[in-house]
């Protein structure tokens, strides 16, 4: 793709100008975020606005931990994420396996039903789910956040199935001839080959549970159980505009930091997951 080679300097200049301008548009809010998080109350109200506060107030990060129950929010979210990941891995790999590597009648029907789940808006199913969890006495625990995701996600099953279709069937046939059971083939032959897709599923599940806001908003009525997004929502509601904005922004940074870290180390997996499914996860 060297179509730009014969282009002149003017073309290059305009191209890079546009690229840099667009990137600035997308990125400048984050610079503003960091700059505000490092201000104190006086710098916050200064006119005209200061973009590089000096001195920088890194102690805001300590203050956030003192003023808000952020450790609890973090540990609740991590609890939800870990159990969701474990459950989802088991259920989704099993289902993905059964939907791609065993042949039987009705398989395509189950697959289409699974695929369609990705297009079901949460509000079409959340009321009965709420009533079920209420009946089971689970409102007031973290279980309503864990159970639906620990019982498999259509997104993960779809990713799994697509990946498994790429592994030659001969491999399973050979093992079958050797007398290996289907569970043996799954556990000892196929799963060890699935490390890349398992990594993708882990990362997407972690991100999905971390970012989820609607379900915590509906299920969690006790502040002791709040996840990080609910914590942020509470902090936003408490803040009088302008006065504590620096601490709110510090909170925002802390709430996105784990996702940013995952993103930096696993960007390829994120992009592959989206490219394979066209969805966020």
């Amino acid at each position, binding site marked *: 793709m060297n179509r730009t080679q014969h282009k002149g300097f003017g073309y290059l200049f305009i191209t890079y100008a546009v690229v840099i301008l667009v990137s600035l548009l997308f990125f400048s809010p984050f610079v503003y975020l960091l700059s505000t998080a490092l201000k104190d109350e006086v710098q916050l109200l200064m006119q005209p606005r200061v973009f590089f506060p000096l001195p920088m107030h890194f102690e805001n990060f300590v203050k956030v931990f003192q003023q808000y129950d952020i450790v609890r929010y973090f540990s609740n979210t991590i609890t939800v994420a870990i159990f969701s990941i474990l459950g989802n891995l088991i259920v989704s790999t*099993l289902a993905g396996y059964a939907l791609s590597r065993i042949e039987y009648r009705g398989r395509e029907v189950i697959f289409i039903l699974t695929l369609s789940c990705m*297009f079901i*808006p949460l509000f079409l199913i959340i009321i009965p789910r709420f009533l079920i969890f209420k009946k089971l006495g689970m409102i007031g625990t973290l279980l309503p956040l864990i159970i639906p995701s620990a019982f498999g996600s259509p997104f993960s099953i779809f990713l799994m199935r697509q990946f498994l279709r790429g592994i030659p069937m001969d491999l399973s046939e050979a093992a079958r001839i050797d007398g290996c059971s289907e569970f043996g083939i799954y556990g000892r032959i196929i799963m060890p080959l699935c490390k890349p897709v398992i990594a993708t599923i882990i990362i997407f599940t972690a991100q999905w549970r971390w970012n989820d806001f609607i379900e915590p908003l509906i299920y969690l009525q006790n502040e002791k159980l709040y996840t990080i997004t609910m914590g942020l929502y509470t902090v936003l509601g408490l803040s009088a505009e302008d006065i504590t904005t620096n601490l709110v922004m510090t909170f925002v940074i802390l709430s996105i930091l784990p996702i940013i870290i995952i993103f930096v180390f696993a960007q390829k997996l994120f992009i592959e997951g989206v490219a394979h499914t066209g969805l966020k996860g």
Partner: protein
Amino acid sequence: MEWERNILYGIGIRRSPLKKGKIWTVFLFLLPWLVSLVVLWYGPIIYTVVLSFMKYRLIGGGRFIGFKNYINIFQDRFFWLGLRNTFSFIVLYIPANFIIGLFTAYMLNLNIRLKGLWRSIIYVPAVLPVIAILALGKFIFYPYGLVNTFIEMIGLKGPLWLANPNLIIPTSVILMVWQCGTAMIVYLGALQAVPSQYYEAADIDGLGKSQQFFQITLPLISPAVFFRMIIDLIFGLMIFIPSLILPAGNVPGGPGNASLFYALYLYEKAFQRFNIGEASTLATILIIISFVITWAVIKMSKRYVYYEV
């Protein structure tokens, strides 16, 4: 080597080890997910429809009241207002997300340096929690925030983005389009799949860049575009978090019900007023809309399923 293949993969051998207990094996593999499909996905959809014909109390259960919920809902002015606001959002959001997503993808598909860096910058907002994006966004759109600072730099007066009923939906759209990275990645994949010979041939034929875009690129990436539009439509129908976070003074749906989205109304009815029956009616009306959309997706699922990067 024909005999070897026959022995190893011969029909007799291939069939016999699987037949016995195969149904049970499949059943065990699928069991947890089937339970989930029934109890957590399709069961609830059906139950939502059933609930829409009921008057339901959290304590005491429900009784059927026919179409009364539907009559109430259709006479409810907030139902129509929510529908209208949601559609205003969708009408702005879908084209904006398409144009910005495709534009950035096109840009990143050019022969430029530091591609990975630009791609990360544009993609990163899409992986962050919506509520963090909105918290930061709200701050940016404050009367003296980043946006108005820029507007004042060029000598104009910035509006009150979060307190003006005419601007709250456009502001929501801008912030949601900030997360267009997912669409961008999909479009980028589609653009990269267009064979470069097509462009070379078009160059020889003397087709201009814009003609090439409309006559070659756009038709070839249309499956991806169509797919994303359906996703965006479903996302748009569900929109309601901006109306909780953005309005000045933290009034959900404000200012003056200007961002009272359909889903916000549903959420408040179901989980704040616990009017389960009418909330289920609102959800059922959404089901009808989404079913039409899902049907369209299944129609194109052949193309979608074999999508490879």
